[in-house]
């Protein structure tokens, strides 16, 4: 670093040393699609937090007099078969999407990464057991696995969360294990071993910070995937039960009125597309920014 600053001073262009996190931030938001993605995510969070302030209606209040109204200035996206305002339900649906996404991804990420760390660090039979179970879980489509678990446990938000955690966990486990396997060959790990650092210290102080970047990308992408999978499950009518407003069940309920009121089914679906797209765009931006081959360039 000292040499670089000397050269730049010699060239008469003093360049301040850019910190790693600032560089990542700069690279990431240099593309406008990533900025759009981030704005959409920010809007979603604001919407979920301030839902009651954004709409004068109740999401679950039945009002049969207003049943199946076309979009108007009072109901921007119309009303559903029992007179509930569609826009209000989409706004409140964002809460379920965010809670399910964040909780499921955090928990499955933490559990999966921990197991992957154990498997990669200790190797041997620990690795064999953990990784073969991971392989078995990954042989099942996440939606099918979730559906089976949700049915067996019997519906509700906690059940859906457990199902999602089990379905998402294996990916983290596998990625973490692979990362740790290659990182533990580095000299700095051997050096920590030599100076007598314990297993826990090596794992959490030295390995985890070094292998974390690709996992962060996976977490971002998975937020979108978790929302998409939860929506699929509630579309099928399994999992989170009515009258709670979820985007998936709204698409399903509206399907019957597709000919006369297409907006009932199509608008919540569009919300899903937007938010999943936003997480994917930000995840891709993060991947580019964390790419070690681009390090040192802005």
């Amino acid at each position, binding site marked *: 670093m000292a040499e670089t600053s000397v050269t730049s001073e010699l060239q008469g262009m003093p360049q301040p040393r850019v910190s790693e996190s600032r560089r990542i931030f700069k690279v990431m938001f240099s593309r406008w699609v990533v900025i759009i993605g981030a704005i959409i995510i920010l809007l979603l969070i604001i919407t979920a937090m301030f839902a009651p302030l954004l709409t004068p209606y109740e999401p679950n209040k039945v009002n049969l007099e207003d049943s199946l109204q076309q979009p108007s200035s009072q109901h921007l996206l119309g009303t559903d078969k029992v007179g509930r305002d569609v826009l209000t339900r989409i706004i409140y649906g964002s809460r379920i999407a965010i809670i399910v996404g964040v909780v499921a991804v955090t928990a499955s990420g933490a559990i999966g990464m921990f197991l992957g760390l154990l498997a990669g660090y200790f190797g041997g039979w620990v690795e064999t057991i953990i990784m073969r179970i991971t392989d078995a879980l990954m042989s099942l489509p996440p939606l099918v*696995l979730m559906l089976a678990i949700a049915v*067996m*446990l019997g519906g509700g938000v906690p059940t859906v969360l457990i199902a999602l955690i089990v379905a998402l966990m294996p990916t983290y486990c596998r990625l973490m294990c692979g990362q740790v396997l290659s990182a533990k060959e580095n000299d700095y790990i051997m050096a920590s071993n030599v100076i007598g650092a314990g297993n826990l210290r090596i794992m959490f102080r030295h390995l985890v910070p070094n292998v974390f970047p690709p996992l962060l990308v996976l977490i971002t992408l998975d937020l979108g995937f978790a929302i998409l999978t939860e929506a*699929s499950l509630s579309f099928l009518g*399994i999992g989170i039960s009515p009258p709670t407003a979820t985007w998936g069940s709204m*698409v399903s309920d509206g399907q019957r009125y*597709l000919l006369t009121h297409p907006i009932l089914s199509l608008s919540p*679906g569009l919300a899903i597309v937007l938010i999943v*797209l936003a997480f994917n765009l930000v995840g891709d931006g993060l991947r580019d920014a964390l790419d070690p081959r681009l390090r040192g360039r802005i």
Partner: protein
Amino acid sequence: MASFIIRRCIQAIIVIFLVTVISFLLLHMIPGDPVIRILGMHASEAQVAQLRHEMGLDLPIYAQYGNWIWNVFHGDLGQSYIYHEDITTLIRERFPITFYLTFLSLTISTIIGIIAGVISAVKRATFIDSFITLFANVGIAVPTFWLGILGIYIFGLQLGWLPVEGWTSPFDDFWQSTRQVIMPVAALAVPNIAIVARQTRSSMLESIHQDYIRTAVSKGLAQRIVFYKHALRNALIPVVTLVGITLIFLIGGEVLTETVFNIPGIGRLLVRAALDNDYLIVQSIVLIIGVIVCFTNLFVDILYGWIDPRIRYR
């Protein structure tokens, strides 16, 4: 190569064993007594005891697993308690439909995905590249069920070009069957086209930057030959491994499309059984899907080792 195949087969057997254990344990995840969940609260004690005995739930758990796997190997998945039918028969009747749809979408999405990915990489940073990248980004984000409903609305209800639902066997009426199959297959294929296109694009770009490509260019080969003969061949290797992942997503999508388009396949059977709490059907379908995916992965891995010898020694 032989030792590689043997190693992979042993691994696959272990994984398949674990898949059977997971499917078996699913039934034991039911909180409370599954017999009462099936029969209802008002069942008499004699009925409960009889069903418990029939299901083998009065045996120790390893014996239950042993009995169950023995029956599965003999093609007996048990009786459905809701539909009062043989589960093996229920699944066998529906399997060809799901297989047909999955096969069609797998083929179509692989071909279109590879073509789109190659065009995108070769025409990097042009309008076509941006368009394909945008399509790929949206394609991954679109829920399959919503895409199906959008298709029904546009091509079924508004334009009236295609039937909105249903299934006809291609052997009975090929034309009608094809018309009915177009939308479900398209809805299934779109996310996978996006996945394959993204992978092909990035591995093609990676391969264009390799030394041997520079060598090929500098010795004066035509760009077309360099791209399609030298770069593409190597770029397609990682795409092969995608088939396993694609299959997993297709089967998941099958559950949704068959529900949207009212197609009597495995996916809709799974959803119906799940809604009716027919646990045994759910368990059997999970088992079958898991085993099919395991075999596909084994096949893909061996194929991968055969195409790219470096893999065999890992």
